[in-house]
Structures are given as C-alpha cells and as structure tokens.
C-alpha cells in the first residue's frame, strides 16, 4: 500500500453530505418553526419577531381540526387493522409458498401509486353520481357518503390497508404451525387457539402496522381534503389554510408544533407500553 487512508477523515467525508442535509433542511427549519410559533402575525401576513404564548392560547380556535384528527385517525387505524388481519392471516397461512410473495406485493402496490389519484377515484365512487346515484335508481334516495366522517374512514381503510397487511403478515409467517397443532391436541377449540395462540403472536405486527398507519393518518391532507370536502377536515387542512390562504404563519407554526408534539408523545407512549408489552408476551410464549 502506498498511502494509508485516515479512517476518521474517510468516515467524516462519508457522513458529511447527509449531515449537511439534516442540519440545514431538517433541524434548522424545525427550529425556525418553533421560533415562529412564539411570534406575531405581520399585518400583511407572515411573521414579526416577538415572544408571546398567544398562538398556543389560540389553539382551541382550531379545536375542530384537532378533534377530527384525534378521533378519526385512531378509529381509522383500528378499522384498518380489523380489515387487514384476516387478509394477512390468509396470505401467511392459507396460500401456497410459491404464490405468497406475489400476492403480498399485489396488496402493497397501491400504496406506492399516487394517493391523489386513488382518492380522486373514491371521490367519483362516493360522489353523487357514484354509489348514491345507483342507489337512487334502486329507489333508495338521499344517501350521502362523501364529505361525511364515513367517507374519510373508508378512505383510511382503503389507503392504509396496503401498509397494515405486511407487518401482520411477517409476524404470522413466523408463527410455528406446530403451536397450533399442540393447542388443538390439548383440546382447545379453534376459537380458543386463535385467541390464545395466534392473536398474541401476531400482536407485534399489529402494533407496528398500527403505528405506521396512525403516523401517516395524523399528518394527512389529501384524504380529508378529497373525501371530507371541507366539512371533515384534519390538522393538515388547517395548516394549508393557515400557511397558503390566510398567511398566519406564527399561528400555523404553533399548530405544526402541536401536531409534531402530539405525534412524538403518542409514538413514545406506544413504544414504551404497547410494543414492549406485546414483545414480552411473545417472549413468554415462544
């Protein structure tokens, strides 16, 4: 060897580009948002430096957005998990190994296609010319689905099922089928085997999937915008309004800080209690 590379210098050079991105495009902008949340709105919109807690005191003015997000996001996550579980069980237990991966990819693929277009399709299906229109020709008139919480929930299940199935599938696939046989041999009914063996083993997957879906639903904008149509709106819709329409940046910054804070606290509590608890239960069983 002619030259000895200096390992520390090489490491620093490898990490420098990402480090610069993290500092200038993540940490600094987030710090600016925090700073702005204590400021005042300029008369023409924008920001004037100040130190006030007024923006945080004003949060209840957007209480409806917080309420909708904090009720529909958990409920939507729960519904998605309920619909995803049998699907994951089917893929992990009832399909032949040759087809399994292809069938799983077929479930995941829609998540990676344009969210905008998928909810646009649901706007047509749930809109007045869609299902309500067909029902009207059958004599069932005045059904309204679009712009109700139900439309947003249907959209949540549709949009996030592809993300919920894989983690549940992974935890079910690892399930040792001999455990099910053992349970049956010991005289347990299929329902009891399911509740006491299969379900506890699948819980880590359900917990991981639920966290992913919950995070994405909390910060969603397109789903409530298209299927809630301004009547059922989330924090994301309030943020677009505050930053791009009414240009009240300091108040918008306070709403953003509140959203991120709620998310991180939820994730922390969730990891601390739910994930660790389901983990220990798995450890106790296997």
């Amino acid at each position, binding site marked *: 060897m002619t030259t000895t590379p200096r390992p520390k210098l090489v490491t620093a050079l490898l990490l420098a580009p990402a480090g610069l991105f993290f500092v200038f495009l*993540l940490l600094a902008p987030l710090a600016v948002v925090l700073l702005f949340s204590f400021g005042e709105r300029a008369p023409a919109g924008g920001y004037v430096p100040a130190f006030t807690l007024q923006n945080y005191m004003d949060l209840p003015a957007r209480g409806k957005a917080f309420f909708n997000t904090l009720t529909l996001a958990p409920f939507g996550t729960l519904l998605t998990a309920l*619909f995803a579980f049998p699907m994951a069980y089917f893929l992990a237990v009832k399909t032949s190994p040759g087809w399994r991966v292809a069938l799983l990819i077929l*479930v995941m*693929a829609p998540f*990676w296609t*344009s969210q905008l*277009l*998928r909810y646009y399709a649901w706007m047509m299906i749930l809109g007045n010319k869609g299902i309500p229109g067909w029902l009207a020709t059958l004599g069932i008139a005045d059904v309204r689905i679009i712009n109700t919480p139900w439309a947003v929930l249907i959209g949540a299940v549709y949009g996030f099922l592809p993300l919920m199935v894989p983690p549940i599938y992974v935890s079910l696939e690892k399930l040792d089928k001999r455990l099910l046989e053992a349970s049956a041999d010991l005289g347990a009914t299929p329902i009891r085997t399911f509740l006491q063996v299969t379900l506890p083993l699948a819980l880590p997957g359900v917990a991981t999937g639920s966290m992913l879906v919950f*995070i994405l639903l909390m910060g969603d904008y397109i789903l409530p915008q298209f299927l809630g149509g301004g009547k059922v709106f989330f924090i994301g819709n309030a943020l*677009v309004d505050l930053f791009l329409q009414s240009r009240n940046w300091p108040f918008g910054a306070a709403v953003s800080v509140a959203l991120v804070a709620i998310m991180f606290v939820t994730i922390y509590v969730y990891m601390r209690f739910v994930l660790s608890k389901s983990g220990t239960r798995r450890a106790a069983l296997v």
Partner: protein
Amino acid sequence: MLRAYAICIYIFLYLPISLIVFFSFNAGKYAMAWEGFSLFWYGKAFSNPLIMGALKTSVIIALSTAFLSAIIGTLTALGLERTKGWLRVTFDALIYIAIMVPGIVIGISTLIAFVSFFDLVNPSLAGLGIKFQMGTWAVIAAHVLFNIAVVALLVRARLQGMDRSLVDASEDLYATPLGTFAQVVLPLLAPAILAGFLLAFTFSFEDFIIAYFVSGPDTTLPIYIFSSIRRGVTPEINAVGSVVLLTSFVLLIAAQAVLRRGERTARAE
C-alpha cells in the same frame, strides 16, 4: 370463506384504480358516464403544454432526487458502518426524525425557513442581480432529505446481512481498500441501492404536499392534477393518471424484483 374475503379485498384495492384507467378511454365529456371507446383524451392530454411542462418538471425533480438520495444515502450507510457511540446514535435519531415528521410539516418548515433566509439576503444581493426564490430546486432538496433516510436504511440492512469474510478475503489478496469497495462491496450493495433509487423516484414523482408548499412558481404534475380536480373533473385527468399509474407500477415491480434477486444472490453467496 377466507379466500372469498381475500378476493373482495383485492377488488376493493384495485377497482378504484381500474375505474380511472377505464374512464380514460371514454369518448364522452364526463368522468363517470360511459359514451364509447376513444383515445381522444390521451391526445388532448399529450398536446396540452401545461401538462407536458408539469410532467417535465416532475421528471427532472424525481430523477435528481433519486440520483442524489441514492448516492448520499449509500455514503451515509457506509459511514455509519464505521461509526460507534454518540455520532451513530445522533444519525440514527436524525434518520428516524426525517422519516417520522409528516410531509406537510417538512413542507411548511422548508418554506418558512427558506423564505425568511431569502428575505434576509436578497436585498444585499440585489446589486449583483441575484435573487433567490422557491422553486424546483427546493422541492428536490426537501425530497432528498426524506429519501436519504430511506436509502440509508435499505443499504444498511444489506450491509449488515453481508458476509464479512468476503471483505477479509479481498484484503488478504492485497486489494486496496478502494479496490475492495469497487469490486466486492459495491456489487453486493447494488440491489439495495437500485431499489432505493427506484423508491426515491416513485416517492418524489408522486409527492404532492411537500411540492405544494415549496415549489414556488413551478408546477409539478401532482400539483397540476390537484388543481384540475378542484376545477372540475374531465377524462383528461384520467388519461394523465393512467400513465402515472402505469409508470409507478412498472417501477415498483422493478424495485421488488431487484430486491428479491439481491436477497437470493446474497444467500447463494
């Protein structure tokens, strides 16, 4: 019964997407009333300069994002492999923050931080004829931030599954560190890097919310689609949408195939 349920789920997942494609061939003016087969709306979409301009902007953004994130993300994974202690913990935390902070907050924070910075420096640069403003480059920067994290996680998983003895063997045979990297490590990492590239492209090509905040006067394809859906629905959107859907399906299947083949060769080796 479970099989019937699974079939229903597949219909539930694919019916809306199929509707978009189906009505893109509609001869009529309305998105939900079939009036016969026609390619009219494809012709109309592809001769619409607004759509083609937005498409061009989106392709530029997605390609730049994919190249930059694949390179920087791979460098990051390689760097973290050589690191221990606080630096590693810090980078891990930053990667997870970049992934967990909602896209809308990334868009907002990039917008207000950059606009404030420009307001600060533009007056003193005006004499030089330089004026910073939001635009395509800001979208690329914000997309790269998120995708560096994704690529770094993918490549790191591959690095950890790699057989160390291959590197040792290469060094025993007197390969230089750079030679070992180019001839042993890089080929093994290639599937993860390529999959990361394709995922970054797909993410960037389809992102609406970040671009909505930071694209300034520039229009990306999702922004164009969003505003035309607001104006009223025409089969033109279905035609553009069908092309977008086809593109992302092809890219996704490619990414999956590359990753699976990579796993298989890794196991075989």
